[in-house]
């Protein structure tokens, strides 16, 4: 589904991303871990064509992301708060995203009703603009908004950060449910090794922009990762 080819990104002489080849199969759930500055967000930004790679390219569903915009209709992402519109209420934001992705209000409402647990009564009908919600609640809105319009590729940058324990557990369930759908490819980055080994079938470790580990998740994965990072 996603194919990274000879991708590099250099800022003023410093290479922050250098990936020869990386392929992510359709229906896979893919985890990206690495310390600060490892290039996780850079990779996701390049995948979304928000930054221009210095060399190489990324293909999404066979389409080079920097050359065509065809991939946008089947891809959704939540990277950070710049994916939220601060002056809208949560409902307005969901409907706006819905309209962009060809979903009417009823469609969006149907989808949202499945996540009332996850929202925990703090999102819908709050009489607050998104900019006035707490960081964690903003994140909930951003994550659920990526599910609108049945996307085939979902990109979540650090979805577990800032969430309370209950919500983290619920989010894990949501991601696992998505993984069960063979049409949905999901890409998650995280600093939390435990979460990521739990929800991802495949984990790639980035270090200084390069792929240093590529693991198919098994019982031993968590231990292996902990050893890697405890150097």
């Amino acid at each position, binding site marked *: 589904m996603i194919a990274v080819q000879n991708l590099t990104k250099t800022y003023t002489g410093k290479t922050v991303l250098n990936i020869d080849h990386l392929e992510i199969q359709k229906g896979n759930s893919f985890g990206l871990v690495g310390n600060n500055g490892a290039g996780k967000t850079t990779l996701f930004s390049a995948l979304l064509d*928000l930054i221009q790679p210095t060399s190489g390219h990324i293909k999404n569903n066979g389409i080079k992301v920097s050359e065509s915009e065809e991939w946008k209709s089947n891809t*959704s992402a939540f990277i950070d708060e710049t994916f939220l519109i601060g002056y809208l209420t949560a409902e307005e934001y969901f409907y706006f995203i819905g309209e*962009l992705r060809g979903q009417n209000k009823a469609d969006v409402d149907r989808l949202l009703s499945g996540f009332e647990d996850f929202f925990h009564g703090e999102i819908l009908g709050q009489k607050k603009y998104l900019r006035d919600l707490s960081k964690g609640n903003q994140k909930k809105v951003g994550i659920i908004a990526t599910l609108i319009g049945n996307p085939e590729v979902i990109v979540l940058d650090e979805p577990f950060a800032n969430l309370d324990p209950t919500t983290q557990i619920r989010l894990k369930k949501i991601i696992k449910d998505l993984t069960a759908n063979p049409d949905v490819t999901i890409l998650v980055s995280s600093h939390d090794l435990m979460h990521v080994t739990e929800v991802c079938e495949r984990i790639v470790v980035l270090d200084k922009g390069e792929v240093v580990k590529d693991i198919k998740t098994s019982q031993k994965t968590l231990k292996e990762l902990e050893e890697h990072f405890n150097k």
Partner: protein
Amino acid sequence: MWKHFITLQWKSFWRSASLTSGLFMKIFMGFWALWLAFMSAVGGVAIFKLIKEHFELDPLETINKFLIYWLAFDLIFRYALQKMPVINIKPLLTLPFHKNKIVSFAFGKTLFSFFNIIHAFFFVPFSITLIRNGYPITNVLLWNLGLIALVYGNNFLNIILNKKDNLIFLIGGILVLLGGLHYFGYFDISVYTGPFFQGLYDTSIITLIPIIILLILIGISFRSFSKDLYLDAGLATKSKDVQTENLDWLNRFGKTATFLKNDIKLIKRNKRARSTVMVSILFLFYGLLFFTGAIETYNGPVWRIFAAIFVTGGFLLSFGQFVPSWDSSYYPLMMSQNIKYKEYLSSKWWLMVIATLLSTVLASGYLYFGWEVYVAILVAAIYNMGVNSHVVLWAGAYVKTPIDLTSNRKAFGDRQAFNAKTLLLSLPKMALPMILYAIGYYAYSPYAGYALVAIAGMAGFALRDKVFDIIENIYKSEKYKTISAYKQKK
């Protein structure tokens, strides 16, 4: 401890993103500040001569008469332009500083503000001229002391006013009322305030009054500030209950409606965007300067078109120049969604056209000055909708200044990046209709001039799709640069 504050301040000034990126702008602003200072200094000397020889009045008394308005306008300018000292206080709160120290530093900073210094450029030369013309030194100095106290009183009054939302409208309203009553000769406040300012000069004891007022104001603002140094009090951003709005009636605009609904919410819910609406209302009155014949230089026929462009295009010019910067805080979202640029642009375009139409209707008050004036306004409205709406969007595509929607403070400060392209594109906005009108006016008749401008406006409509294509290409080719520029927080 003061040393720490001052080094912090020094670094925050020199390392701010806006200084490094907008050096040209800083020089430009600096040039204007110097120019203003110079003009005030010259004015201080010249006004003495002017009043004495031209009007044969006592210069000091005359100035005293108008000082109340001087101070009132000073306050309004400060309210609109002067930045509050609060900005970087948060990280200091948990450090071992006394809160009083923090507040006194923040206040101390404002003492050196341009808004306080600028007065000296007028009053010092004026006072020197007074002394040289035989006014006693002590009295002149006392008068100055009183004025300094009043100017600084304004400084602190502004700090207090800034914390209340609506007080300034009250004060502005009273000012407009008093000014109007004075102008039409019903009631002259300066009759009552003039003697007070004169008293600063005549009787030394009166000078104590402004000084006491100043001390009280300092006390109040100091108290209210140090009391509010909590994250959930003075430093908090206010939020109030809001309702979800559907704006379904806009759906008749088809796909454009998705964005149109958002843009209307954008304007309604953000301070900065709302201020463009205020600007357009102010511009509605701009024509009064021209059509009443108040200023001689502006009586030429060509100026009519100039004024009319502003009267009908206030919103268009002030909103349009920042497309797409209005969406800067969520630009990555927009860029990763499947958005048709044409729909996005046409939403902004419709907003500007609707606003122009509204302004044109509201401007019908100008019929009072004769229907020829209103024809100028109608013609300018057509030109605005047909040509300027596109040119403004085009120029905006080159602007990469991120906008902080929630704060109004910089609405006047950074009058956007003055890059060569936007400057070049401002020519057809203003100059072209004036030239067209002049050609028609002088070659044939006033109506030929109007007709030419109107035809140009009509022709502009035909080019809409072409211009949208150009803008779309700019958006695409500048996409990465724009995203990274919008990431730079000020």
